[in-house]
Protein backbone atom coordinates (compact mmCIF):
# COMPACT_ATOMS: atom_id res chain seq x y z
CA UNK A 1 0.00 0.00 0.00
CA UNK A 2 1.35 3.44 -0.89
CA UNK A 3 2.16 5.80 1.91
CA UNK A 4 -0.34 8.59 2.37
CA UNK A 5 0.89 12.04 3.32
CA UNK A 6 -1.21 14.95 4.52
CA UNK A 7 -2.11 17.35 1.74
CA UNK A 8 -4.41 19.52 3.80
CA UNK A 9 -4.22 20.31 7.51
CA UNK A 10 -6.68 22.59 9.29
CA UNK A 11 -5.73 23.64 12.82
CA UNK A 12 -8.12 25.49 15.10
CA UNK A 13 -9.90 27.17 12.20
CA UNK A 14 -12.52 29.67 13.21
CA UNK A 15 -14.56 31.80 10.86
CA UNK A 16 -16.72 34.69 11.86
CA UNK A 17 -18.27 36.82 9.12
CA UNK A 18 -18.44 40.59 9.32
CA UNK A 19 -22.17 40.45 9.93
CA UNK A 20 -21.48 38.62 13.19
CA UNK A 21 -22.40 35.10 12.05
CA UNK A 22 -19.91 32.44 13.05
CA UNK A 23 -19.78 29.74 10.40
CA UNK A 24 -16.92 27.56 11.64
CA UNK A 25 -15.89 26.88 15.23
CA UNK A 26 -12.44 25.58 16.08
CA UNK A 27 -12.17 23.09 13.24
CA UNK A 28 -9.36 20.52 13.02
CA UNK A 29 -9.14 18.34 9.94
CA UNK A 30 -6.51 16.38 8.06
CA UNK A 31 -6.86 15.16 4.49
CA UNK A 32 -4.25 12.93 2.92
CA UNK A 33 -2.89 12.99 -0.59
CA UNK A 34 -5.03 10.94 -2.96
CA UNK A 35 -8.08 10.79 -0.67
CA UNK A 36 -11.69 11.22 -1.76
CA UNK A 37 -13.65 13.04 0.95
CA UNK A 38 -17.32 13.95 1.14
CA UNK A 39 -18.08 16.96 3.28
CA UNK A 40 -21.71 16.67 4.29
CA UNK A 41 -24.10 18.75 6.32
CA UNK A 42 -27.31 20.69 5.98
CA UNK A 43 -27.73 24.36 5.13
CA UNK A 44 -25.78 26.58 7.51
CA UNK A 45 -23.54 23.73 8.64
CA UNK A 46 -20.46 25.58 7.36
CA UNK A 47 -19.57 23.32 4.44
CA UNK A 48 -19.59 26.09 1.89
CA UNK A 49 -17.49 28.29 4.16
CA UNK A 50 -15.01 25.46 4.64
CA UNK A 51 -14.78 24.87 0.88
CA UNK A 52 -14.37 28.62 0.23
CA UNK A 53 -11.56 28.81 2.77
CA UNK A 54 -9.78 25.95 1.01
CA UNK A 55 -9.52 27.91 -2.22
CA UNK A 56 -8.97 31.12 -0.29
CA UNK A 57 -12.15 32.87 -1.33
CA UNK A 58 -12.62 33.44 2.38
CA UNK A 59 -9.96 33.83 5.05
CA UNK A 60 -10.35 32.20 8.48
CA UNK A 61 -10.64 34.58 11.43
CA UNK A 62 -8.28 32.34 13.41
CA UNK A 63 -6.28 29.18 12.80
CA UNK A 64 -4.18 27.69 10.06
CA UNK A 65 -5.09 26.08 6.76
CA UNK A 66 -2.04 24.34 5.36
CA UNK A 67 -2.29 23.08 1.81
CA UNK A 68 0.80 21.42 0.35
CA UNK A 69 2.95 22.90 3.13
CA UNK A 70 1.71 26.48 2.73
CA UNK A 71 -0.55 28.33 5.12
CA UNK A 72 -3.16 29.71 2.75
CA UNK A 73 -4.83 31.64 5.56
CA UNK A 74 -1.91 34.03 5.44
CA UNK A 75 -1.75 34.22 1.66
CA UNK A 76 -1.94 37.79 0.36
CA UNK A 77 -4.73 38.62 -2.12
CA UNK A 78 -2.23 39.32 -4.86
CA UNK A 79 -0.74 35.83 -4.46
CA UNK A 80 -3.99 33.85 -4.36
CA UNK A 81 -3.73 33.03 -8.06
CA UNK A 82 -0.64 30.93 -7.36
CA UNK A 83 -2.69 28.69 -5.06
CA UNK A 84 -5.58 28.49 -7.53
CA UNK A 85 -3.32 27.29 -10.32
CA UNK A 86 -2.61 24.22 -8.24
CA UNK A 87 -6.29 23.55 -7.52
CA UNK A 88 -9.31 22.61 -9.58
CA UNK A 89 -12.66 23.99 -8.50
CA UNK A 90 -16.10 22.76 -9.57
CA UNK A 91 -19.31 24.61 -8.68
CA UNK A 92 -22.95 23.68 -8.51
CA UNK A 93 -23.86 26.13 -11.30
CA UNK A 94 -21.08 24.93 -13.68
CA UNK A 95 -19.92 28.50 -14.42
CA UNK A 96 -19.35 27.99 -18.11
CA UNK A 97 -19.15 30.83 -20.62
CA UNK A 98 -22.21 30.49 -22.87
CA UNK A 99 -20.61 32.14 -25.90
CA UNK A 100 -17.67 29.76 -25.97
CA UNK A 101 -17.69 26.17 -27.21
CA UNK A 102 -16.91 23.24 -24.93
CA UNK A 103 -13.34 23.20 -26.19
CA UNK A 104 -12.95 26.96 -25.72
CA UNK A 105 -14.40 26.82 -22.22
CA UNK A 106 -11.79 24.30 -21.14
CA UNK A 107 -8.99 26.04 -23.05
CA UNK A 108 -9.99 29.33 -21.41
CA UNK A 109 -8.53 28.13 -18.11
CA UNK A 110 -5.16 27.59 -19.74
CA UNK A 111 -5.28 30.81 -21.76
CA UNK A 112 -5.97 32.74 -18.59
CA UNK A 113 -2.73 31.51 -17.06
CA UNK A 114 -0.73 32.17 -20.22
CA UNK A 115 -0.12 28.61 -21.41
CA UNK A 116 1.44 28.06 -24.87
CA UNK A 117 -1.19 27.45 -27.56
CA UNK A 118 0.35 24.13 -28.63
CA UNK A 119 0.15 22.88 -25.02
CA UNK A 120 -3.38 24.23 -24.66
CA UNK A 121 -4.60 22.00 -27.48
CA UNK A 122 -3.01 18.83 -26.14
CA UNK A 123 -4.10 19.40 -22.54
CA UNK A 124 -7.64 20.46 -23.44
CA UNK A 125 -8.30 17.44 -25.62
CA UNK A 126 -6.85 15.14 -22.96
CA UNK A 127 -9.11 16.64 -20.27
CA UNK A 128 -12.18 16.36 -22.51
CA UNK A 129 -11.34 12.75 -23.22
CA UNK A 130 -11.08 12.05 -19.50
CA UNK A 131 -14.62 13.29 -18.88
CA UNK A 132 -15.90 11.57 -22.04
CA UNK A 133 -16.79 14.68 -24.00
CA UNK A 134 -14.22 14.70 -26.78
CA UNK A 135 -17.01 14.25 -29.32
CA UNK A 136 -18.79 17.40 -28.14
CA UNK A 137 -15.83 19.76 -28.23
CA UNK A 138 -17.48 22.00 -30.82
CA UNK A 139 -20.85 22.22 -29.09
CA UNK A 140 -21.98 25.17 -27.03
CA UNK A 141 -22.94 24.70 -23.36
CA UNK A 142 -26.65 25.25 -24.01
CA UNK A 143 -26.63 22.30 -26.39
CA UNK A 144 -25.56 19.96 -23.57
CA UNK A 145 -27.44 18.31 -20.70
CA UNK A 146 -26.78 19.44 -17.13
CA UNK A 147 -24.59 16.44 -16.48
CA UNK A 148 -22.55 17.11 -19.60
CA UNK A 149 -22.15 20.77 -18.69
CA UNK A 150 -20.88 19.75 -15.29
CA UNK A 151 -18.42 17.38 -16.96
CA UNK A 152 -17.14 20.30 -19.02
CA UNK A 153 -16.65 22.21 -15.77
CA UNK A 154 -14.74 19.22 -14.36
CA UNK A 155 -12.58 19.07 -17.49
CA UNK A 156 -11.80 22.74 -17.02
CA UNK A 157 -10.91 22.12 -13.38
CA UNK A 158 -8.52 19.27 -14.13
CA UNK A 159 -7.01 20.59 -17.36
CA UNK A 160 -4.03 22.02 -15.54
CA UNK A 161 -3.45 18.71 -13.76
CA UNK A 162 -4.07 19.89 -10.19
CA UNK A 163 -3.21 17.88 -7.12
CA UNK A 164 -6.46 18.87 -5.44
CA UNK A 165 -9.98 19.04 -6.82
CA UNK A 166 -12.52 20.97 -4.76
CA UNK A 167 -16.18 20.46 -5.62
CA UNK A 168 -18.91 22.61 -4.09
CA UNK A 169 -22.16 20.65 -4.43
CA UNK A 170 -21.40 19.59 -8.02
CA UNK A 171 -24.56 17.44 -8.20
CA UNK A 172 -26.87 20.02 -6.64
CA UNK A 173 -28.60 20.84 -9.94
CA UNK A 174 -28.68 17.30 -11.35
CA UNK A 175 -31.05 14.35 -11.24
CA UNK A 176 -29.88 11.16 -9.42
CA UNK A 177 -28.69 9.43 -12.58
CA UNK A 178 -26.60 12.34 -13.74
CA UNK A 179 -25.32 12.90 -10.19
CA UNK A 180 -24.00 9.39 -10.12
CA UNK A 181 -22.40 9.86 -13.50
CA UNK A 182 -20.60 12.98 -12.25
CA UNK A 183 -19.32 11.34 -9.08
CA UNK A 184 -18.16 8.41 -11.21
CA UNK A 185 -16.09 10.85 -13.26
CA UNK A 186 -14.64 12.36 -10.09
CA UNK A 187 -13.91 8.89 -8.70
CA UNK A 188 -12.16 8.01 -11.93
CA UNK A 189 -10.00 11.11 -11.78
CA UNK A 190 -9.19 10.31 -8.15
CA UNK A 191 -8.15 6.78 -9.00
CA UNK A 192 -6.35 7.27 -12.32
CA UNK A 193 -4.64 10.58 -11.70
CA UNK A 194 -4.26 10.33 -7.93
CA UNK A 195 -5.96 13.71 -7.52
CA UNK A 196 -7.25 14.43 -4.04
CA UNK A 197 -10.99 15.15 -4.28
CA UNK A 198 -13.01 17.08 -1.71
CA UNK A 199 -16.70 17.22 -2.44
CA UNK A 200 -19.28 19.10 -0.45
CA UNK A 201 -22.73 17.62 -0.86
CA UNK A 202 -26.04 16.93 0.81
CA UNK A 203 -26.95 14.13 -1.55
CA UNK A 204 -27.51 11.08 0.70
CA UNK A 205 -27.75 8.52 -2.09
CA UNK A 206 -24.44 9.48 -3.58
CA UNK A 207 -22.61 9.42 -0.24
CA UNK A 208 -24.09 6.07 0.70
CA UNK A 209 -23.35 4.55 -2.65
CA UNK A 210 -19.69 5.48 -3.03
CA UNK A 211 -18.52 4.63 0.51
CA UNK A 212 -15.75 7.20 0.82
CA UNK A 213 -14.49 9.09 3.80
CA UNK A 214 -17.28 11.28 5.16
CA UNK A 215 -16.78 14.39 7.26
CA UNK A 216 -20.10 15.54 8.67
CA UNK A 217 -20.42 19.15 9.75
CA UNK A 218 -23.11 20.63 11.94
CA UNK A 219 -23.33 24.24 13.05
CA UNK A 220 -19.71 24.81 12.15
CA UNK A 221 -18.27 21.80 13.98
CA UNK A 222 -17.16 18.33 12.84
CA UNK A 223 -19.84 15.93 14.10
CA UNK A 224 -18.53 12.72 12.56
CA UNK A 225 -15.54 11.65 10.53
CA UNK A 226 -15.75 8.12 9.12
CA UNK A 227 -13.65 6.17 6.70
CA UNK A 228 -16.07 4.54 4.25
CA UNK A 229 -18.80 6.43 5.98
CA UNK A 230 -22.49 6.76 5.41
CA UNK A 231 -24.97 9.60 5.43
CA UNK A 232 -27.45 8.05 7.79
CA UNK A 233 -27.57 10.36 10.74
CA UNK A 234 -30.92 12.13 10.51
CA UNK A 235 -29.69 14.88 12.82
CA UNK A 236 -27.15 16.14 10.25
Amino acid at each position, binding site marked *: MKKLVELITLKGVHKKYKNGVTAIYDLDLKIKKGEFVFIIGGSGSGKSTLIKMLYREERPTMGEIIIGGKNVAKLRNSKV*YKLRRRLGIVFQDYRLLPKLTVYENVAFALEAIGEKSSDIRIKTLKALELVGLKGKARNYPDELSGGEQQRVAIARAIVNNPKLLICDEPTGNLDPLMSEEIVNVLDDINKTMGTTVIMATHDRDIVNKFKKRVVALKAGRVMEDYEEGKYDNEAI
Partner: protein
Amino acid sequence: MKLFRMIKCGIRDAFKSVYRNFSLSIASISCISITLLIVAIALVMSFNVKNFSKEIESDVTMVVFLNLGVTSEEISDFEATLSSMENVLPDWEVKNPEERKEMLLEEDEFWNSVGSLIDNEEEIFHYSYMIKVEDINRINETATEIENLPVVQVVNYGEGMVEQMVSTFDLVEKVAFVVVIILIIVTVFLIVNTIKLTIFSRRREISIMRVVGASNWTIKNPFIIEGFIIGLLGSILPVIVTIYGYTAFYNTLDDGHLFSSFIQLLSPQPFVYFVSLVVIVIGVIVGMIGSGRAVRKYLKI
Protein backbone atom coordinates in the same frame (compact mmCIF):
# COMPACT_ATOMS: atom_id res chain seq x y z
CA MET B 1 7.10 34.96 -24.47
CA LYS B 2 4.42 34.43 -21.89
CA LEU B 3 4.21 38.17 -21.34
CA PHE B 4 3.69 38.78 -25.07
CA ARG B 5 0.97 36.14 -25.16
CA MET B 6 -0.83 37.79 -22.25
CA ILE B 7 -0.54 41.23 -23.84
CA LYS B 8 -1.84 39.83 -27.13
CA CYS B 9 -4.84 38.32 -25.31
CA GLY B 10 -5.38 41.63 -23.51
CA ILE B 11 -5.40 43.60 -26.76
CA ARG B 12 -7.79 41.12 -28.38
CA ASP B 13 -10.19 41.30 -25.41
CA ALA B 14 -9.96 45.08 -25.28
CA PHE B 15 -10.91 45.46 -28.95
CA LYS B 16 -13.75 43.00 -28.44
CA SER B 17 -15.19 45.00 -25.59
CA VAL B 18 -14.81 48.35 -27.38
CA TYR B 19 -16.92 46.74 -30.09
CA ARG B 20 -19.35 45.12 -27.64
CA ASN B 21 -20.15 48.37 -25.79
CA PHE B 22 -20.12 50.25 -29.04
CA SER B 23 -22.47 53.12 -28.19
CA LEU B 24 -20.74 53.96 -24.93
CA SER B 25 -17.32 53.54 -26.50
CA ILE B 26 -18.36 55.96 -29.22
CA ALA B 27 -19.51 58.45 -26.59
CA SER B 28 -16.15 58.23 -24.82
CA ILE B 29 -14.22 58.41 -28.06
CA SER B 30 -16.20 61.47 -29.21
CA CYS B 31 -15.71 63.17 -25.89
CA ILE B 32 -12.00 62.54 -25.93
CA SER B 33 -11.87 63.70 -29.57
CA ILE B 34 -13.52 67.01 -28.71
CA THR B 35 -11.23 67.49 -25.74
CA LEU B 36 -8.16 66.71 -27.78
CA LEU B 37 -9.32 68.96 -30.61
CA ILE B 38 -9.50 71.84 -28.15
CA VAL B 39 -6.15 70.80 -26.70
CA ALA B 40 -4.69 70.83 -30.21
CA ILE B 41 -6.14 74.26 -31.00
CA ALA B 42 -4.93 75.59 -27.66
CA LEU B 43 -1.45 74.17 -28.28
CA VAL B 44 -1.25 75.60 -31.80
CA MET B 45 -2.40 78.99 -30.54
CA SER B 46 -0.19 79.07 -27.54
CA PHE B 47 2.95 78.05 -29.42
CA ASN B 48 2.28 80.63 -32.12
CA VAL B 49 1.49 83.34 -29.62
CA LYS B 50 4.66 82.49 -27.69
CA ASN B 51 6.62 82.59 -30.90
CA PHE B 52 5.46 85.97 -32.15
CA SER B 53 5.20 87.63 -28.79
CA LYS B 54 8.84 86.72 -28.33
CA GLU B 55 9.57 88.39 -31.63
CA ILE B 56 7.56 91.46 -30.68
CA GLU B 57 9.23 91.62 -27.33
CA SER B 58 12.68 91.52 -28.84
CA ASP B 59 11.66 94.34 -31.15
CA VAL B 60 10.12 96.69 -28.62
CA THR B 61 12.39 99.66 -28.18
CA MET B 62 12.11 102.54 -25.79
CA VAL B 63 13.37 105.91 -26.97
CA VAL B 64 14.65 108.23 -24.27
CA PHE B 65 15.26 111.91 -25.04
CA LEU B 66 17.47 113.86 -22.69
CA ASN B 67 17.03 117.52 -21.92
CA LEU B 68 18.58 120.03 -24.26
CA GLY B 69 22.04 121.14 -23.34
CA VAL B 70 22.97 118.31 -21.00
CA THR B 71 26.56 118.29 -19.87
CA SER B 72 28.90 115.38 -20.48
CA GLU B 73 28.96 114.61 -16.71
CA GLU B 74 25.21 114.39 -16.69
CA ILE B 75 25.36 112.04 -19.65
CA SER B 76 27.87 109.72 -18.06
CA ASP B 77 25.84 109.79 -14.81
CA PHE B 78 22.73 108.88 -16.78
CA GLU B 79 24.51 106.03 -18.55
CA ALA B 80 25.77 104.70 -15.24
CA THR B 81 22.22 104.73 -13.89
CA LEU B 82 20.98 102.90 -16.99
CA SER B 83 23.61 100.19 -16.56
CA SER B 84 22.53 99.66 -12.99
CA MET B 85 18.91 99.01 -13.98
CA GLU B 86 18.31 95.29 -14.09
CA ASN B 87 15.55 95.34 -16.71
CA VAL B 88 17.57 97.39 -19.20
CA LEU B 89 19.59 95.39 -21.72
CA PRO B 90 23.18 96.71 -21.91
CA ASP B 91 23.40 97.15 -25.69
CA TRP B 92 21.59 100.46 -25.99
CA GLU B 93 22.21 102.85 -28.82
CA VAL B 94 23.08 106.53 -28.38
CA LYS B 95 22.29 109.21 -30.90
CA ASN B 96 24.51 112.21 -30.59
CA PRO B 97 22.78 115.37 -31.84
CA GLU B 98 26.05 116.96 -32.99
CA GLU B 99 26.72 114.12 -35.38
CA ARG B 100 23.20 114.17 -36.58
CA LYS B 101 23.22 117.90 -37.17
CA GLU B 102 26.31 117.57 -39.29
CA MET B 103 24.85 114.72 -41.22
CA LEU B 104 21.59 116.54 -41.80
CA LEU B 105 23.24 119.76 -42.87
CA GLU B 106 25.21 117.85 -45.41
CA GLU B 107 22.12 116.26 -46.82
CA ASP B 108 19.87 119.22 -47.26
CA GLU B 109 17.37 117.37 -49.28
CA PHE B 110 16.92 114.67 -46.68
CA TRP B 111 16.53 117.26 -43.96
CA ASN B 112 13.66 118.87 -45.79
CA SER B 113 11.79 115.61 -46.22
CA VAL B 114 12.30 114.32 -42.68
CA GLY B 115 11.68 117.64 -41.04
CA SER B 116 8.04 117.66 -41.95
CA LEU B 117 7.50 114.28 -40.33
CA ILE B 118 8.74 115.28 -36.94
CA ASP B 119 6.31 117.13 -34.65
CA ASN B 120 8.87 118.69 -32.49
CA GLU B 121 11.75 119.67 -34.65
CA GLU B 122 13.89 120.25 -31.66
CA GLU B 123 13.73 116.55 -30.73
CA ILE B 124 16.33 115.67 -33.27
CA PHE B 125 18.74 117.98 -31.49
CA HIS B 126 18.36 116.09 -28.22
CA TYR B 127 20.59 113.30 -27.03
CA SER B 128 18.53 110.15 -27.53
CA TYR B 129 18.89 106.53 -26.40
CA MET B 130 17.34 103.47 -27.98
CA ILE B 131 16.87 101.01 -25.14
CA LYS B 132 15.63 97.40 -25.11
CA VAL B 133 14.26 95.72 -22.03
CA GLU B 134 14.62 92.22 -20.75
CA ASP B 135 11.08 91.68 -19.42
CA ILE B 136 8.37 93.21 -21.55
CA ASN B 137 5.81 92.94 -18.75
CA ARG B 138 7.80 95.44 -16.69
CA ILE B 139 8.40 97.91 -19.49
CA ASN B 140 5.99 100.42 -17.98
CA GLU B 141 7.74 100.36 -14.64
CA THR B 142 11.17 100.77 -16.23
CA ALA B 143 9.97 103.63 -18.44
CA THR B 144 8.60 105.52 -15.42
CA GLU B 145 11.83 104.96 -13.56
CA ILE B 146 13.84 106.42 -16.44
CA GLU B 147 11.41 109.28 -16.95
CA ASN B 148 11.85 110.28 -13.31
CA LEU B 149 15.55 110.84 -13.79
CA PRO B 150 16.29 114.63 -13.83
CA VAL B 151 18.12 114.73 -17.16
CA VAL B 152 15.36 112.89 -19.02
CA GLN B 153 12.82 114.93 -20.91
CA VAL B 154 10.62 112.27 -22.41
CA VAL B 155 10.39 108.50 -22.86
CA ASN B 156 8.56 107.00 -25.83
CA TYR B 157 7.46 103.43 -26.44
CA GLY B 158 4.32 101.72 -27.70
CA GLU B 159 2.62 102.49 -24.39
CA GLY B 160 -0.31 100.30 -23.60
CA MET B 161 -0.43 98.51 -26.91
CA VAL B 162 2.30 95.99 -26.20
CA GLU B 163 1.18 95.26 -22.67
CA GLN B 164 -2.42 94.89 -23.75
CA MET B 165 -1.47 92.42 -26.43
CA VAL B 166 0.64 90.35 -24.08
CA SER B 167 -2.01 90.26 -21.39
CA THR B 168 -4.72 89.33 -23.90
CA PHE B 169 -2.66 86.40 -25.10
CA ASP B 170 -2.06 85.45 -21.50
CA LEU B 171 -5.78 85.47 -20.75
CA VAL B 172 -6.61 83.41 -23.84
CA GLU B 173 -4.05 80.85 -22.79
CA LYS B 174 -5.41 80.65 -19.25
CA VAL B 175 -9.03 80.27 -20.39
CA ALA B 176 -8.02 77.53 -22.85
CA PHE B 177 -6.16 75.76 -20.05
CA VAL B 178 -9.18 75.82 -17.72
CA VAL B 179 -11.51 74.57 -20.48
CA VAL B 180 -9.12 71.74 -21.29
CA ILE B 181 -8.87 70.70 -17.64
CA ILE B 182 -12.67 70.64 -17.28
CA LEU B 183 -13.04 68.63 -20.48
CA ILE B 184 -10.39 66.17 -19.36
CA ILE B 185 -12.25 65.60 -16.08
CA VAL B 186 -15.52 65.00 -17.96
CA THR B 187 -13.76 62.62 -20.34
CA VAL B 188 -12.15 60.66 -17.52
CA PHE B 189 -15.58 60.34 -15.94
CA LEU B 190 -17.08 59.04 -19.18
CA ILE B 191 -14.29 56.54 -19.65
CA VAL B 192 -14.70 55.31 -16.07
CA ASN B 193 -18.33 54.61 -16.91
CA THR B 194 -17.51 52.86 -20.16
CA ILE B 195 -15.00 50.58 -18.48
CA LYS B 196 -17.41 50.02 -15.59
CA LEU B 197 -19.96 48.64 -18.05
CA THR B 198 -17.33 46.42 -19.60
CA ILE B 199 -16.39 45.11 -16.20
CA PHE B 200 -20.03 44.36 -15.39
CA SER B 201 -20.65 42.69 -18.71
CA ARG B 202 -17.61 40.48 -18.18
CA ARG B 203 -18.27 39.69 -14.53
CA ARG B 204 -18.82 36.01 -15.18
CA GLU B 205 -15.67 35.72 -17.22
CA ILE B 206 -13.71 37.56 -14.53
CA SER B 207 -15.00 35.27 -11.79
CA ILE B 208 -13.98 32.21 -13.82
CA MET B 209 -10.57 33.71 -14.52
CA ARG B 210 -10.08 34.21 -10.79
CA VAL B 211 -11.11 30.64 -10.07
CA VAL B 212 -8.72 29.11 -12.60
CA GLY B 213 -5.82 31.15 -11.29
CA ALA B 214 -5.39 34.08 -13.66
CA SER B 215 -3.13 36.67 -12.06
CA ASN B 216 -4.55 40.05 -11.12
CA TRP B 217 -2.46 41.61 -13.82
CA THR B 218 -3.95 39.32 -16.47
CA ILE B 219 -7.46 40.19 -15.33
CA LYS B 220 -6.89 43.94 -15.20
CA ASN B 221 -4.77 44.18 -18.32
CA PRO B 222 -7.58 44.13 -20.97
CA PHE B 223 -9.42 46.97 -19.23
CA ILE B 224 -6.37 49.19 -19.08
CA ILE B 225 -5.70 48.41 -22.75
CA GLU B 226 -9.32 49.29 -23.51
CA GLY B 227 -8.76 52.73 -22.00
CA PHE B 228 -5.59 53.04 -24.05
CA ILE B 229 -7.46 52.13 -27.24
CA ILE B 230 -10.28 54.60 -26.50
CA GLY B 231 -7.67 57.33 -26.02
CA LEU B 232 -5.86 56.34 -29.18
CA LEU B 233 -9.03 56.19 -31.31
CA GLY B 234 -10.13 59.50 -29.83
CA SER B 235 -6.93 61.18 -30.92
CA ILE B 236 -7.24 60.19 -34.60
CA LEU B 237 -9.61 63.02 -35.58
CA PRO B 238 -7.72 65.78 -33.72
CA VAL B 239 -4.43 64.61 -35.25
CA ILE B 240 -5.89 64.70 -38.77
CA VAL B 241 -7.39 68.14 -38.15
CA THR B 242 -4.10 69.39 -36.74
CA ILE B 243 -1.92 68.11 -39.56
CA TYR B 244 -4.16 68.96 -42.53
CA GLY B 245 -6.02 71.87 -41.00
CA TYR B 246 -2.98 73.79 -39.85
CA THR B 247 -1.02 73.12 -43.04
CA ALA B 248 -3.96 74.25 -45.18
CA PHE B 249 -4.45 77.37 -43.07
CA TYR B 250 -0.75 78.18 -43.27
CA ASN B 251 -0.77 77.74 -47.04
CA THR B 252 -3.69 80.12 -47.54
CA LEU B 253 -1.67 82.86 -45.85
CA ASP B 254 1.00 84.86 -47.58
CA ASP B 255 4.14 83.08 -46.44
CA GLY B 256 2.67 82.40 -43.02
CA HIS B 257 1.95 86.05 -42.23
CA LEU B 258 -1.30 86.55 -40.36
CA PHE B 259 -3.02 89.97 -40.81
CA SER B 260 0.30 91.74 -41.33
CA SER B 261 3.97 90.99 -41.69
CA PHE B 262 4.04 91.66 -37.96
CA ILE B 263 2.62 88.21 -37.06
CA GLN B 264 4.55 85.27 -38.47
CA LEU B 265 3.06 81.78 -37.86
CA LEU B 266 5.23 78.76 -37.15
CA SER B 267 6.06 76.68 -40.19
CA PRO B 268 3.82 73.53 -40.24
CA GLN B 269 6.70 71.10 -40.33
CA PRO B 270 7.74 69.73 -37.93
CA PHE B 271 5.39 71.75 -35.72
CA VAL B 272 2.19 69.78 -36.60
CA TYR B 273 3.88 66.46 -35.84
CA PHE B 274 5.00 67.72 -32.48
CA VAL B 275 1.45 68.89 -31.63
CA SER B 276 0.02 65.56 -32.87
CA LEU B 277 2.40 63.62 -30.68
CA VAL B 278 1.42 65.68 -27.64
CA VAL B 279 -2.29 65.16 -28.47
CA ILE B 280 -1.86 61.37 -28.79
CA VAL B 281 0.09 61.16 -25.54
CA ILE B 282 -2.56 63.18 -23.70
CA GLY B 283 -5.34 61.02 -25.20
CA VAL B 284 -3.71 57.78 -24.24
CA ILE B 285 -2.86 58.97 -20.73
CA VAL B 286 -6.41 60.27 -20.15
CA GLY B 287 -7.81 56.93 -21.42
CA MET B 288 -5.59 54.94 -19.14
CA ILE B 289 -6.29 57.14 -16.11
CA GLY B 290 -10.02 56.60 -16.72
CA SER B 291 -9.71 52.85 -17.06
CA GLY B 292 -7.29 52.64 -14.13
CA ARG B 293 -9.79 54.42 -11.91
CA ALA B 294 -12.62 52.15 -13.04
CA VAL B 295 -10.56 49.03 -12.43
CA ARG B 296 -9.58 50.20 -8.97
CA LYS B 297 -13.16 51.11 -8.09
CA TYR B 298 -15.19 48.34 -9.67
CA LEU B 299 -12.90 45.37 -10.16
CA LYS B 300 -12.54 43.82 -6.73
CA ILE B 301 -10.04 41.01 -6.82
